[in-house]
């Protein structure tokens, strides 16, 4: 039987008349990386702030290990916020020692932990450098280190890869994986990077307008919009896109066709075999194909399918 470390029960948050989180129910398993996806303003950060005890819910409960969050001993959760939350005039080591003290980590243990964290996050050389003098990537890693110094059971990472270069992102991803696989921690990860969520998460929740839309493993989520390939075609004359969409819709074994960002996006099993027919319908018009690609179904397709293409915030 699965052991749940966090449970959100009918979680609701209103800001005046605005309903930010609408009756959210979630169970997060111990030792998993739980991806939390949603467009900007979907209610991710609000939900997380309630789950870690920073924000009071308008309604509903948060249970940590079956205990109400209000009575849970502090220190079970470590949060790495979306924005950099650092003391610019402390050194890396001073910052981590301070945070450890605040969580009452014994001095001897704390020193070891700080050294290990600095080493794991490749910050040892900068241990005596003022945070204000770190590069953007180093500050991101410090932001994470501050969430971990007290060895929390649950780690909340709110868009941790924001602004990181590919090298730093790789360091971070490896570290997140090690948090789960080697240290047995539960990680809640919010991100806008679908490949990040796909690669790291055991399960993913997609929310929008404060409501949970889908919760499953990345593999199962991709099946939500059916298995198969995605064909994207860009025509010389975009004005006839809708005409072509209608023509393709009437074909057999086409699961989905839509116009996305000026391109025609077709989802179908064994799409290559469908291509001659599709090209035939295009040739009937005056337009020609400017660009065409075939790729496998991704989490981003699922995300767009569930949350739509309209801009948020």
């Amino acid at each position, binding site marked *: 039987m699965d052991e749940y470390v966090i449970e959100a029960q009918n979680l609701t948050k209103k800001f005046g008349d605005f309903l930010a989180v609408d009756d959210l129910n979630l169970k997060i398993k111990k030792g998993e990386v739980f991806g939390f996806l949603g467009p900007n303003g979907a209610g991710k950060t609000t939900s997380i702030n309630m789950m870690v005890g920073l924000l009071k819910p308008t309604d509903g409960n948060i249970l940590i290990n079956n205990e109400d969050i209000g009575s849970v001993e502090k220190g079970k959760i470590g949060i790495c*916020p979306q924005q950099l939350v650092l003391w610019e005039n402390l050194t890396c080591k001073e910052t981590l020692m301070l945070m450890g003290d605040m969580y009452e980590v014994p001095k001897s243990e704390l020193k070891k932990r700080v050294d290990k964290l600095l080493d794991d996050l490749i910050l040892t050389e900068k241990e005596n450098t003022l945070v204000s003098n770190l590069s953007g990537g180093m500050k991101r890693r410090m932001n994470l280190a501050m969430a971990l110094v007290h060895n929390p059971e649950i780690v909340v990472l709110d868009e941790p890869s924001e602004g990181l270069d590919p090298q730093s992102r790789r360091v971070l991803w490896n570290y997140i994986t090690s948090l789960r696989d080697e240290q047995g921690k539960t990680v809640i990860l919010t991100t806008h990077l679908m490949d990040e969520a796909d690669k790291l998460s055991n399960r993913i929740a997609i929310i929008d307008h404060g409501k949970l839309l889908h919760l499953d493993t990345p593999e199962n989520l991709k099946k939500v919009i059916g298995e198969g390939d995605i064909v994207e075609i860009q025509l010389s004359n975009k004005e006839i896109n809708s005409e072509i969409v209608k023509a393709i819709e009437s074909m057999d074994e086409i699961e989905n066709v839509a116009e996305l960002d000026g391109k025609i996006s077709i989802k179908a099993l064994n799409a290559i075999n469908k291509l001659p027919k599709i090209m035939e319908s295009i040739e009937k018009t005056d337009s020609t194909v400017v660009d065409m690609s075939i790729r496998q179904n991704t989490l981003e397709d699922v995300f767009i399918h569930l949350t739509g293409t309209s801009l948020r915030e």
Partner: protein
Amino acid sequence: MKFFSIAKKDLKELLRDRRGLFFILLFPMFFMLIFGFAFGGMGQDNQPHNIAIINYDNGAILPGTGEHVNFGNNLTNQLKDAKYEESNVHIFNITKTTESKASSLMYHRDIDLELIIPSGFSQSIIDLKSMSQSGSITSLTTVNSSNKNTKSTLIIRGDTSYINFGTSQSILTSILAKMGNNIQGTTGAQVQDFIKTKIEGIGTKNLTTFDYMAPGIIVFAILMLAINVATILTREVENGTLNRLKLSKMTAFDFLFGGLLPWSLVVVAQVLILFAVALAIGFNYNGGLNSIILAVIVGVIGGIASISLGMIIAAFAKNPPQASQLGTLIAVPTSFIIGAFIQLPQVVLGNVMGQQFQIYDILPWTHVLTALRGVLTFGYGWNGIAYDVGWAVVLTVIIFAIGVFLFSRTRLSPENE
């Protein structure tokens, strides 16, 4: 027309920060209320002025009748009975007392000034009357001179920078002059040749207005610390670092007491700088090095109270600009309320340990200011200011406790929005 776009942007920002706008608009209102309260008498034009009379007059024998008279007592009674024109309100509230008690009353600003009637006052009056009647003047330059004309000096003593002293002193001087003219009659000697009036500052040294005002200026500067503390604490909120700490096992006491310690060092430095600058520009005070040391200790207590006030402000302000506005809104009027520059009308709540306890005494800075005046202006030692220092410490602890409670409730609990 870029300036117009900037103006529109600024106006929108101003109007949309409603809390900030509220503080900005409230500030002049507070000022007007305080000044109105201080100078307007809140609808009452004529108020009795509190003065103390120390009567050393021995009395004298009236020539001719042989009657023993005491014109010092007469003067006291006349001042006591004096009323505003076309009014039943007495001009003075008279306290007949000794010099040491009067000094204590003045230290607590329970009186505006003390009038000291000298021992030979009655004899001077008799000599003046005799001279007026005879129409000739003998030697007037020495007291109890060989030709037996007695010259007396009425001393009006007080804190010459104190606005109430100025008011009471000018009323008293004009009444005394009027009384003198009545004695003088139609012919004879000039009153000032027999009875002089001398205005004396407090203490042994000749102090300037700046010297008298210095304690108020020091307390004002110390109060401004509250704004800095509130702004810096609110920055922790805005930067999100407080949220990190909030999730830890840190308590409001840890956070605020931890903050109090380094800020106390800042206070020590600030108070030392204040005194150093004041002394460098010629600040005179009564007492020696010990007085300065005592004043620094008192100043530090006031500074700690200001830090605690900053913590209370930080419990309500959402960002540094709001903290700055709210801090100014509170700290500046407080400096007026405690009497750093002007004295508000007396509002006595009762008596504590034989001392009047006024509504302003619920603020520690009132006691800090009184104690600083005691040390620097009156030249008091520890014993003279112990009562006020005691109150300042107790009230500072209370303000700090309120700061911890409010900060814990508003900043370290889960937020509502």
